[in-house]
């Protein structure tokens, strides 16, 4: 049973943000490969979106989204109040053009390339040292 207050808060957030991503970590520093894949898709679409880091309240948020959307895993992408899905479905709808349609933007030309499975961890260049 989800906390009713949290559930209501989550519903309000979904309603208030046309594009809303629940993710592990932040767009700048995703803490999970699946979340990173969704961020990469959204960046390729060049849309503004709200992002919520679920890690500080993972279990309560799982319970809330389970009741709201029958979906318990993160990331979760919502567009205009509708759940698109997790990383797999975000990529599928991205490649098919359905995501662009839902977002009301043009399909980026490099869609298939950008959506290639991101298996490798984020590239981390060593800090530059200038002496």
């Amino acid at each position, binding site marked *: 049973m989800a906390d009713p207050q949290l559930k209501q808060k989550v519903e309000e957030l979904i309603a208030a943000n046309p594009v809303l991503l629940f993710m592990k970590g932040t767009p700048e520093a995703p803490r999970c490969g*699946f979340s990173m894949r969704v961020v990469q898709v959204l960046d390729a679409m060049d849309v503004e979106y709200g992002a919520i880091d679920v890690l500080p309240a993972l279990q309560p948020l799982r319970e809330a989204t389970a009741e709201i959307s029958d*979906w318990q*895993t993160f990331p979760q992408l919502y567009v205009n109040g509708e759940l698109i*899905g*997790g990383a797999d479905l975000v990529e*599928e709808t991205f490649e098919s053009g359905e995501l662009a349609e839902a977002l009301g933007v043009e399909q980026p030309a490099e869609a298939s390339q950008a959506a290639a499975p991101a*298996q490798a961890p984020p590239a981390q260049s060593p800090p530059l040292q200038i002496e």
Partner: protein
Amino acid sequence: MIAAALPGAVVEVVDETGAGDHLRATVTAPQFAGLSRLDQHRLVRAAVKERFDDGQIHALSIKTEAAG
């Protein structure tokens, strides 16, 4: 496990890391006919929920197709 929950399903599971806890499943099932992809994924997730709950699986990538 997926095949038991979805009789007639063709399931292909790939162990992505070799550790057995990050899996990629491709599922083709007659039960998917007429369902949205969201619902197809919900069915697969429900089938493996136990393994997530007991921690045997950490991550599961899913691709679904309706049979036929």
